[in-house]
């Protein structure tokens, strides 16, 4: 019973938790001398708890998010550099799509093991009810989409729904409009505070965003994303810009593969390479780890194609390891895998992971406000610009 212990703090809901436990079992089977102790937290509480346990009582491994979300911990020296894990296991290649988001100052601090695609989920019944043609295989064009919206509006159906009381759902829409208008690099620079909100490019984004605005569910600011999902399920709304995790909710509400559809967000500016949003979940080695060597073994295992295939298969998300495979029976996963693997423009994390926390919040408030009060555009832009100048002094 002299096993070496690796401790791992995580924030899984029941289904991912079971998958993680299976993953641990596999790892322990392969490494019988190591005992992995998973300490699971409530998802919301975890965001708070991690700040405490990293200092007070650090585990070996901790779940968190990539990109800017991990930056404070890296800067405080709480997450350890694991460039060696990447190098030793050839991850730079296997996890190619996630290299950028795992890297700070040229060093890797995270092992990404799952992501999920965003896109437009739609209700075929609603399309039929409004007499709108169903989108084809490659989605619809922007103009077509807006025309459809006009028809939905006439039929009393919300063309685009969302529930923004928690703010982040609007960021999804904005990100897509932004990437489709100006491309991935623009999104990335905007999130990094490098682009002025009053620049013509930014204005162009809002102009397109504004075209969508009249068709978005009214009162979205008062409801949660699940409430909005109910609207889609009930056919009161036709399209929903959401992440793939919402599929479970749609299906719980009674939708099936027959009437739930998925398409990528329409192209706006022609010729821009398509990029997609796919927030990545990661595991990190802490600086205070007591058993870093075995922890790194586990990290490498988590990064492996087999482990990712299995875990994501159980959870219904996409593996980050390009050598892993997805469940072909799930049309949404395969569609997502397809969309992401052909996203030549790049993979974005999500507004609130690409941008610094405070900046992210200010931005999302601006997006939400714009969707409620489009006439306030100037004021919104000016405020955002001020925030930007304060946070990123030129």
């Amino acid at each position, binding site marked *: 019973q002299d096993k070496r212990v690796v401790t791992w703090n995580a924030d899984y809901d029941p289904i991912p938790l079971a998958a993680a436990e299976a993953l641990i079992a596999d790892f322990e089977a392969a490494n019988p001398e190591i005992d992995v102790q998973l300490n699971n937290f409530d998802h*919301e509480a975890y965001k708070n*708890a991690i700040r405490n346990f990293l200092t007070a009582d650090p585990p070996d491994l901790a779940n968190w998010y990539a990109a800017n979300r991990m930056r404070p911990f890296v800067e405080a020296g709480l997450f350890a550099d694991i460039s060696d894990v990447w190098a030793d296991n050839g991850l730079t290649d296997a996890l190619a799509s996630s290299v950028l988001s795992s890297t700070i100052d040229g060093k890797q601090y995270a092992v990404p093991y799952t992501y999920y695609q965003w896109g437009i989920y739609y209700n075929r019944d609603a399309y039929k009810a409004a007499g709108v043609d169903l989108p084809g295989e490659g989605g619809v064009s922007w103009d077509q989409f807006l025309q459809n919206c006009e028809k939905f509006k006439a039929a009393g159906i919300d063309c685009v729904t969302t529930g923004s009381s928690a703010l982040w759902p609007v960021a999804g829409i904005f990100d897509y409009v932004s990437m489709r208008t100006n491309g991935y690099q623009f999104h990335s620079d905007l999130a990094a505070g490098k682009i002025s909100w009053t620049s013509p490019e930014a204005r162009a984004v809002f102009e397109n965003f504004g075209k969508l605005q009249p068709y978005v569910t009214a009162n979205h600011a008062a409801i949660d994303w699940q*409430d909005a999902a109910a609207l889609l399920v009930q056919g009161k709304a036709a399209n929903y810009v959401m992440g793939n995790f919402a599929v479970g909710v749609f299906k719980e509400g009674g939708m099936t593969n027959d009437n739930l559809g998925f398409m990528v967000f329409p192209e706006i500016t022609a010729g821009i390479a398509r990029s997609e949003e796919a927030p990545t979940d990661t595991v990190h080695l802490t600086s205070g780890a007591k058993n870093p060597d075995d922890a790194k073994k586990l990290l490498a295992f988590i990064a492996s194609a087999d482990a990712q295939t299995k875990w994501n298969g159980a959870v219904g998300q996409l593996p980050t390891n390009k050598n892993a495979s997805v469940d072909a029976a799930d049309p949404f996963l395969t569609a997502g895998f397809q969309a992401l693997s052909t996203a030549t423009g790049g993979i974005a994390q999500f507004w609130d992971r690409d941008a610094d926390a405070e900046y992210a919040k200010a931005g999302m408030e601006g997006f939400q406000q714009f969707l409620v009060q489009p006439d306030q555009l100037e004021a919104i832009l000016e405020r955002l610009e001020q925030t930007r100048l304060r946070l990123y002094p030129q």
Partner: protein
Amino acid sequence: MFPRPIQQSAPAVRWLYSIALPVALLLWLFPLLGVALTSLRPASDLAQGNYFGMPSGIAWENYVYIFTETPIGQYMVNSLWVTIPTVIGAVSLSLMTGFALAVYGFRGNILVFFMFVAGNFVPFQILMVPVRDMTLQLGMYDTWYGLALFHIAFQTGFCTLFMRNFIKALPYELIEAARVEGVVEWRIFWFIVLPLMRPAIAALSVLVFTFIWNDFFWATVLTQGVDSQPITAGLSSLNGQWIAQWHLVSAGSILAALPPVLMFFLMQKHFIAGLTLGAVK
């Protein structure tokens, strides 16, 4: 005496009043009644949009559900773990401080007293960061006793104010009489003051119980998991999970409201006496 007793007015007015009373009450409690009703609606009613019509049946299963499928029971137990020690701690501490402040005219007495009063009004927010930090450092973050300890400390301010005023209102001659009779101070406290404080203790206990039970802010700040979060914070996080399941939210709300409401009904006299005596919170 004001307004004029209704008995003295015309029969029509009296009749009107007797009608107006229940109507006003119904309107006043309407939101509460609505929630109580909703908590007993089957989920199917809500799904069909039957939010306000006759429920198609009484769904006790909503309550069964939240007890079996969610940790609401645990939350309630946590609440008790926080509330009961706080009531006992704050009340017994303040009995002593109150006695000292009321009976002995030591120097700085009034200053200490005003300190307690002022502390009582302080916005929680100014305490939040340091208290949270301190609790963390002491390793009591996310434990019921960390939360209870803070509550005891904070409530002692209010309770002392209350107790002191109550003891001050006791006839001072009682204490003098006992002194002349040769009774030592702590016995005066034990045999004379304490028995007379019984109503105050009851009132204060009820009051503190509701305050603590209903506390949300500190529950959010000092606890976070199912293992230690009290019902208010628990309900708030369950609310995050029960999107659009208003029958569950309602049932949870009713459950969370029940203990203080029961307390109020059982100890009504003390409760109101406490409020008007202490009057500040």
